[in-house]
C-alpha cells in the first residue's frame, strides 16, 4: 500500500471515530444522526422560529447585561436574559425546569443580586469605570471561545435532530418520578448542601462570630 493511501485511510478512520461518538449515543433508538435522515436547515419549523426569536432576545439581553454602564440596569437585563431562557426551556418541552427557572432565578437570585448591589453601595447612576483595563483581552477570549465552540458543535452535531413530539418528557409528573425515584439520594445530599450554604452565609456575614479579638 502506498503511504499516501495509508495516510488518507488513517485520516478518514480518525474522522469516523470523531463522528462515532454520536453514533454510539444513538444506538438502540430512533434518534436522527445521519445526513440522509435529517431534515434540511432550509425547512424551518414553527418551533425553530420561536426558538430563534427567543434565543436572539436572550442573547441580546445577556450582551446588554455584561456591557451596560449602569449596575441596576445590568441586573434588570439579567432578568430578561434568564426569563428568555425559561422561554427556551418551554420550547424544548421542559416545562417544570422552565417554571423552576422563573421562580428561583428571576424570583430569588436576581433579587439577591440587587440586594448585593445595594449593600455594597453601588452607585445607581451611570458609571464609566465598570470595566477593567483588560477588556480587549476579554473580547478576544470570548470571541475565540465562541468560534471554537461553534466549530466543534457544528462538526459534531450537524445532523442531530430533536423530536419535540409531545412525549411528556419534561412534565412535572415525569420529572418528579425521576427525581424521587432514581435521583433521591443526590436530591437529599443537595438539601444538605443548601443548609450548609445557608449556615455558611450567615456565619460569614455576622459581625459577632469568629475573629473576635481583632475588633
Amino acid at each position, binding site marked *: 500500500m502506498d503511504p499516501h493511501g495509508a495516510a488518507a485511510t488513517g485520516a478518514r478512520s480518525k474522522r469516523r471515530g470523531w463522528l462515532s461518538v454520536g453514533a454510539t*449515543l444513538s444506538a438502540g*433508538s430512533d434518534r436522527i444522526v445521519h445526513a440522509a435522515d435529517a431534515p434540511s*436547515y432550509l425547512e424551518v*419549523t414553527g418551533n*425553530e422560529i420561536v*426558538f*430563534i426569536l427567543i*434565543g436572539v432576545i436572550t442573547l441580546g439581553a*445577556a450582551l446588554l447585561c*455584561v456591557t451596560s454602564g449602569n*449596575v441596576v440596569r*445590568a441586573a434588570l437585563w*439579567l432578568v430578561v436574559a434568564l426569563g428568555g*431562557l425559561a422561554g427556551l426551556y418551554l420550547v*424544548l418541552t*421542559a416545562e417544570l*425546569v422552565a417554571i*423552576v*427557572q422563573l421562580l*428561583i*432565578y428571576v424570583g430569588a*437570585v436576581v433579587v*439577591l*443580586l440587587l*440586594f*448585593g448591589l445595594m*449593600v*455594597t453601595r*453601588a452607585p445607581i447612576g451611570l458609571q464609566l469605570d*465598570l*470595566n*477593567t483595563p*483588560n477588556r480587549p483581552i*476579554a473580547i478576544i*477570549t*470570548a470571541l475565540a*471561545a*465562541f468560534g471554537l*465552540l*461553534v466549530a466543534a*458543535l457544528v462538526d459534531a*452535531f*450537524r445532523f*442531530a*435532530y*430533536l423530536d*419535540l413530539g409531545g*412525549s411528556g*418528557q*419534561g412534565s412535572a409528573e415525569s*420529572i418528579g418520578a*425521576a*427525581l424521587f425515584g432514581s435521583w433521591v439520594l443526590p436530591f437529599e445530599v*443537595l438539601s444538605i448542601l*443548601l443548609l450548609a*450554604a*445557608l449556615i455558611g*452565609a*450567615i456565619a*460569614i456575614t455576622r459581625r459577632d462570630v469568629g475573629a473576635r479579638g481583632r475588633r
Partner: protein
Amino acid sequence: MHLLYPLIVSAGLFSIGLYGLLARRNLVLVLMSVELMLAAVSLNLVAFDVWLADVMRSGQVLTLMVIAIAAAEVGLGLAIVLQLFRQRATSAIDDLDTLTEPR
C-alpha cells in the same frame, strides 16, 4: 428542531458570560456573569436530555440541581462580597490585590 440551535445559543451565552467575567470590575457584576455561564450549561443539559430521551431524565434533573447550586453559590458569594466590603470598603476586584506579587 435541529439540536444545533440550542447548542449555539448556549455557546453564545457562555461566551458572553466569559467576557463579563473577565471584563467587569464590580464583584456583583462578575457574579452575574457567572450566572450567565451556568445558564448556558443548563440549556445544554436540557437540550441533550430532550435529544437523548433519557429514561432517568438525567439532563433535566441535573438542571434542577444546577439551579439549586447556583442559588447557594450566589448566597455565599454575596456573603463574601458583603464581608469584603465591610473590611475594605470596596467591591472593585482591581483593588483587591493583596495576594499579587509585588511589581
